[in-house]
């Protein structure tokens, strides 16, 4: 009896050893590929088992950020069209792409977030439940981006942020399932700060206009921190709610603050209105204006040449086509389809989808942890703005930061020639350490 037991035990050990050996060997055979042994996670495998995959897009189509949301949406739509047709531009960014992603057609649904986190989360939850969305995107407000980050991690569905400048998005609120292409407010401050000091001098007094949410507070803080190193002080910081109907009260405080420079962190129509009203109050004659995180359509919407000689940090301006061949292709394709030069919201959106396609093609699977690891591999990728790569620790793209300066109307060569590119800075030297804002991305599964 005891021998039999011993024999059985020996056989079990041998079987277990064989299984373990096979288990260790298999990953190298099926390198980077999900296979049946993976437990379902999020909308995988249901969301990618058919001939198409679905992306949920939530952009603001109403409210103060509606104009920027529409531009962003156009960027997404062009990218999907290019991915499904295997367009040359997408294949230059994602060389393994043929048609679709891993041969599957990309479909999408669009919902209006109105730049409100609750609206965005509800819409994306619906896309996940009803459409088995395998990817979420869209934001022009960091409050939305942070909320969708949390949803992504909870539901284990990937989220690629739209426009989001807050240090929190891939800082303290970073998640394993979230990725951001555009830069931190901190990076913008590090890029535009030296330009402002060089242009306006040291020991200046700055007045800030700050929208009252994560983007506004973190960008203002980053600007204050950087400029303090050059002896700049804060004369006043005017915090206003998103969508304030009038800025006159805030601007009177600015006018009476004795500041030399007005640093306007407001965004969307709030930025437009506050700048127009600053002109009404004669502030722009007394103070220099700077916009740390540029707003798509700002110059054309403000009008009247009010942004002449104003510095701003941005992701993209269409005249970058002179330097980057893929930017030239993108501008041409976008203008052909939509009839105007793309702003950086559209560029950001196109980049995010192209980079996602690249990550999935390299993962060889729609299994989310594999895609995340593909992002985190740090491959050098050719993009609209030259060579870029993902920083694994905080899921932020290492990419150039562009400093632009508003043109005087008389200097404009065409009706969309609003900005001069002052400099294009490599991103990495400007970026803080990945954990500087407390990023702890959480688990893969």
């Amino acid at each position: 009896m005891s021998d039999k037991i011993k024999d059985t035990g020996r056989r079990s050990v041998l079987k277990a050893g064989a299984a373990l050996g096979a288990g260790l060997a298999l990953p190298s055979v099926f390198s980077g590929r999900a296979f049946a042994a993976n437990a379902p996670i999020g909308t995988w495998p249901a969301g990618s088992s058919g001939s198409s995959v679905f992306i949920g897009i939530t952009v603001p189509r109403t409210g103060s950020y509606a104009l920027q949301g529409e531009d962003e949406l156009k960027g997404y739509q062009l990218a999907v069209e290019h991915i499904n047709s295997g367009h040359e531009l997408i294949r230059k960014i994602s060389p393994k792409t043929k048609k679709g992603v891993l041969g599957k057609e990309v479909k999408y649904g669009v919902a209006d977030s109105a730049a409100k986190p609750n609206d965005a989360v509800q819409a994306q939850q619906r896309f996940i439940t009803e459409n088995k969305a395998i990817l979420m995107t869209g934001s022009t407000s960091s409050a939305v981006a942070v909320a969708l980050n949390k949803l992504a991690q909870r539901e284990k569905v990937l989220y690629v942020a739209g426009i989001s400048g807050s240090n929190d998005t891939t800082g303290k609120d970073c998640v394993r399932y979230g990725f951001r292409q555009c830069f931190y407010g901190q990076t913008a401050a590090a890029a535009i700060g030296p330009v402002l000091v060089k242009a306006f001098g040291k020991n200046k007094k700055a007045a800030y206009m700050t929208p009252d949410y994560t983007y506004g507070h973190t960008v203002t803080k980053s600007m204050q921190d950087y400029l303090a190193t050059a002896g700049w002080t804060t004369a006043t910081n005017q915090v206003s709610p998103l969508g304030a109907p009038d800025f006159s009260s805030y601007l009177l405080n600015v006018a009476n603050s004795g500041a030399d420079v007005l640093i306007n962190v407001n965004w969307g129509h709030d930025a437009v209105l506050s700048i127009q009203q600053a002109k009404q109050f004669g502030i722009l004659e007394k103070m220099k204006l700077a916009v740390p995180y540029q707003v798509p359509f700002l110059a054309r919407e403000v009008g009247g040449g009010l942004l002449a000689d104003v510095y701003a940090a941005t992701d993209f301006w269409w005249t970058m086509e002179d330097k980057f061949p893929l930017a030239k292709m993108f501008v041409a394709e976008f203008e052909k389809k939509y009839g105007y030069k793309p702003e950086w919201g559209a560029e950001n959106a196109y980049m995010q989808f192209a980079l996602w396609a690249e990550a999935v093609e390299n993962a060889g699977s729609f299994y989310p942890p594999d895609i995340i690891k593909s992002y985190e591999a740090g491959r050098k990728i050719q993009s609209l703005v030259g060579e870029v790569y993902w920083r694994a620790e905080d899921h932020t793209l290492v990419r150039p930061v562009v400093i632009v300066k508003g043109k005087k109307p008389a200097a404009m060569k065409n009706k969309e020639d609003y900005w001069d590119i002052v400099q294009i800075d490599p991103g990495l030297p400007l970026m803080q350490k990945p954990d500087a804002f407390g990023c702890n991305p959480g688990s893969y599964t």
Partner: protein
Amino acid sequence: MVNWSNFLSQLFNGLVLGALLALISSGLTIIYGTLGVLNLAHGAMFMLGGYAGYVAYEWSGSFLVAVVAGTLFLGVVGVLMERLIIRHFYSRPHEDQLLLTFGLSICMVELLRYFFTSMSKTVPPPQMFSGITSLGIMFYPTYRLALVGIVAVALLVLYFVLYRTRLGMIVRAGIEDSVMVDSLGIDVYRVFMVVFGIGAMAAGFAGIVNAPVVSLTPDGGEAILVQTFVVVVIGGVGSFPGAILGGLIAGEIISLTSMVNPGYAYVMLFAAMTLVLLVRPHGLLGTRGRE
């Protein structure tokens, strides 16, 4: 330490803000007071007036033409709304009226977005009111100064219509007891139509005279609507003088709070409304309204 220059600047700015709010709120309160309809489309009508004026300005280049066009256009829109839709809801519950006017506001906003996109539009002030004026303690936009006078004239006209004409007498009688007015042989529904038209014209007028101050966006009326409701509640629902008083109080609250802590400007507005509701549930100049 109080910065007196800033304090006086904000005090004056509160007056200007308040005058504008009073003008917008007056239309809302006249309609509610007479018809008993809480018009949630009032903010959208305010923007519609602004856009109508913008189109007229683009066509004519004249601010005066823009003001007349924006006002008259909304008068026509108001009369059509009342005749075709609103009148069918007088006897319906308030909830139905709220849903109806809310739906109408969505339609108006999306129509504006369809025709004009979300890109904001600007209407410059008339040449004689452009630029900045020195008031000693501060520089202030000349047009905003003129706006105080423009709004004062508009409110005086409204006051004259409401308190010095036969129509106004009927309207005020309708506010008190519309059934009695009807029983006296007066076609109260025709009066309702005229009142809705006047309220809409007030919104349209406010929309276009406000356009040089705040650039036009399709949904710009939403935030204004919220503020005007606060104004109406503070002043007293249905009270024309209450709308003026409420507007001035709201303007000063926003302006003076922003001097101390700008982040709390709108919070304080709602705090004041809550306080008024606790102390005087019918508003400062309101009386027990029609049920």
